[in-house]
């Protein structure tokens, strides 16, 4: 009986769905401990019980979010072997040490999250807050070492190839630390985690305020989380630029795809939008020479186009290009929102009052997640057809088992159910009753709406 291996499509989609699900929880696992630290620190310093309630509620959310993050991360390590055994068999020894170190970070995180979550009321606040410090540190360390593995896949180092194409002279430290891509990917991802966390949390309170719940609690919770998201956005634009300039030299095929550069040329334009049809870019907005400038800081620089990349080494250009544009577009919009917030705060010392600001803040939550996903599509799909860039093709990494499409179906069903259950549970948590002293409507610093649904921008009234 000869059975054909499962179509690569199913394996890749299962990996994409699993990673896309897990990455949101990873972000929250890295970002939320920071927010917890801020809230509990504010409580200790000011004695304001609003911050205590905030930290306690957030820690309940962390409890469930970390659990889902932990189990969905485990699933990925199963899938490494179930879906990509040839990749693991050949390269596990080269990049695996990074996962061993990540595992230590993850262990530490699990230990201290448990102690932190379960020791409210059992220790004085000053002792309790210290339990959050190892969580925050180990989360960042774990992220660093996971990112080294992805960086390694994009820029493989730490070995030489023998005559049969197998790795030899393996140097696992060089694979981890000798990799030029790591620093860019790590910083970009870390900031993304903070931004996603800040905007997702702020979304909850912006939504509440739009519904007319103008409590001091909601305002302060919004302020803490929204500010946390906003401060990293401008930095993220700079790291995004740095990462692109690194990619242009290390992965020309990815860069050509994300810019949709079909031809190699000097004074390459920056292409915004558009679709490549039969090797020609159509309907794009082109800004002359900006592509060359962004890539090399020189408008005359020659940028490699897809015409220089063999057909069987090109990533699917439209997916990569449009994802890149979407990521940059959302990032720019978030920067605009942050600027709006900063301007009003600076000029008037309070939050903006128009409902549009809060509508935008609600949209910023899913927006940040979308930008995260689009960014990962650029990284992962842009690396195709390679699993290990330039060395191992994705199709050669795959399992030869048949029937793996059922794994994809299963993952979709389970994760869809889980998302619904989680949203319902977290909504319940956010709607739990507040202590009476925190539900006073505070007019002083304002906020949108006043329970009336069609409140006109109150800016002019109060200005």
């Amino acid at each position: 009986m000869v059975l054909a291996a499962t179509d690569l499509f199913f394996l890749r989609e299962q990996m994409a769905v699993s990673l896309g699900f897990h990455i949101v929880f990873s972000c929250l696992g890295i970002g939320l401990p920071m927010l917890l630290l801020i809230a509990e620190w504010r409580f200790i310093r000011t004695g304001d019980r609003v911050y205590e309630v905030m930290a306690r509620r957030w820690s309940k959310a962390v409890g469930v979010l970390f659990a889902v993050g932990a189990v969905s991360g485990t699933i990925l390590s199963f899938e490494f072997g179930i879906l990509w055994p040839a990749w693991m068999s050949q390269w596990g020894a080269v990049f695996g040490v990074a996962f061993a170190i990540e595992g230590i970070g993850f262990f530490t995180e699990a230990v201290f999250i448990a102690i932190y979550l379960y020791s409210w009321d059992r220790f004085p606040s000053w002792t309790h807050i210290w339990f959050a410090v190892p969580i925050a540190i180990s989360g960042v360390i774990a992220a660093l070492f996971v990112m080294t593995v992805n960086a390694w896949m994009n820029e493989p180092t730490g070995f030489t190839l023998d005559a049969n194409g197998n790795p030899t002279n393996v140097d696992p430290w060089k694979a981890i630390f000798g990799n030029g891509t790591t620093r860019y990917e790590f910083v970009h991802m870390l900031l993304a985690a903070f931004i996603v966390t800040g905007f997702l949390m702020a979304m909850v309170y912006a939504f509440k305020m739009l519904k007319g719940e103008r409590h001091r609690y909601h305002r302060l919770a919004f302020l803490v989380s929204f500010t946390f998201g906003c401060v990293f956005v401008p930095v993220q634009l700079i790291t995004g630029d740095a990462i692109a300039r690194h990619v242009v030299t290390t992965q020309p095929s990815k860069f050509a795809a994300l810019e949709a550069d079909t031809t190699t040329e000097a004074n390459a334009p920056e292409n915004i939008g558009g679709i490549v049809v039969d090797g020609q870019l159509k309907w794009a907005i082109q800004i002359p020479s900006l592509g060359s400038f962004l890539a090399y800081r020189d408008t005359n620089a020659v940028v490699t186009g897809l015409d220089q990349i063999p057909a069987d080494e090109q990533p699917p250009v439209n997916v990569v290009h449009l994802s890149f544009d979407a990521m940059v577009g959302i990032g720019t919009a978030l920067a605009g929102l942050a600027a709006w917030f900063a301007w009003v705060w600076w000029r008037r010392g309070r939050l903006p009052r128009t409902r549009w600001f809060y509508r935008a803040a609600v949209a910023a939550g899913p927006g940040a997640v979308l930008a995260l996903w689009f960014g990962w599509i650029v990284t992962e799909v842009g690396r195709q057809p390679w699993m290990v860039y330039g060395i191992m093709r994705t199709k050669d990494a795959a399992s030869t088992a048949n029937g793996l499409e059922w794994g994809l179906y299963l993952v979709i069903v389970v994760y869809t159910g889980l998302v619904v259950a989680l949203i319902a549970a977290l909504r319940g948590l956010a709607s739990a009753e507040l202590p009476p002293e925190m539900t006073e409507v505070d007019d002083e610093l304002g906020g949108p709406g006043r329970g009336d649904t069609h409140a006109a921008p109150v800016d002019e009234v109060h200005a």
Partner: protein
Amino acid sequence: MTLADTVVVVLFVGITAYAVLGGADFGAGFWDLFAGDAERGRPQRVLIEQAIGPVWETNHVWLIFVLVVLWTCFPPAFASIMSTLFIPLTLVAVGIILRGSGFALRKLVEPVRLQRFYGGSFALSSVVTPFFLGAVAGAIASGRVPVGNAAGNPITSWLNPMGVLGGTLAVVTCAYLAAVFLTADADRRGRDDLCGAFRSRALIMGAVTGVVALGGIGVVRNDAPALAEQLTHRGLPLVILSALAGVGSMILLWTGYYAWARVSGALAVTAVIWGWGVGQYPYLLMGTLTIEQAAAPDATLTAVLVSLGIGALVLVPSFILLYTLNLRDDLGEASALEDSAESAESAESAESMTGTQR
């Protein structure tokens, strides 16, 4: 002992920790499943939640530890196991998701209907997951995982006497360990009613585990003769130790030394795991791949040992802190399950009060 052997020892430390600590958490889910309806079973479920709540995630990380050490240090073994046994392993993966999220969600939701749903998902997957993990162990131990990319039969490699034995043994062992642990936990909390309930469950499940293990001897001899040969020679001391420790833990339970019963029960499981390892040595995949054949280059093995050694400096004190706090009952958190228990209790006491007043 070669460098690769040293790493295998580390690997088995991880497997043991996961089997004992993670196994007891799975078993707790087993008892959650059979605790009775929402009303009657609530005290047991609250105890289970308090006992495993703070530690289950840390215990779960041992599984990740095992996978990481396996794929980094013995990549061909990892690839062969995962790709051939993808069916039971996919079911394990789904079980892990449903168990973890079911457990975490149950604490968060108020309606009893939802608590029951999430609790059911936690409890049922706590039984299914160790079964398939045990089946995977049975498949490896009986030499049914050949080297290569999905080289073995995806179904008969694990759906066979050894696979079923491994799965069954895993489920009953987890349930036994958990009952022993929960007896000690209930005793420490001064809950005599729960202590008695879990004690009798532990004794029954201990007997069941003994019967499965004895019956398993025949299965191993027929279905995994190579392993049986080693278990009756090199591995014999460990097999005997396991049996003694198992019987010993039941005697300690009977006589009321619950904390020591916990230690003895854990020792019994540890001896089985190491007996399996010794029985397979020098094979990683029984009969098809030796430790040396599978081993990564020395540079990688050294790097892993160095990393884990440095990591242990942080981890060991962290573990001690967590488990000490947990055993001293210094960790606790209000949960929806307890809230509903409290409200039920206060309703009861209010009722009895009005009763006396009348």
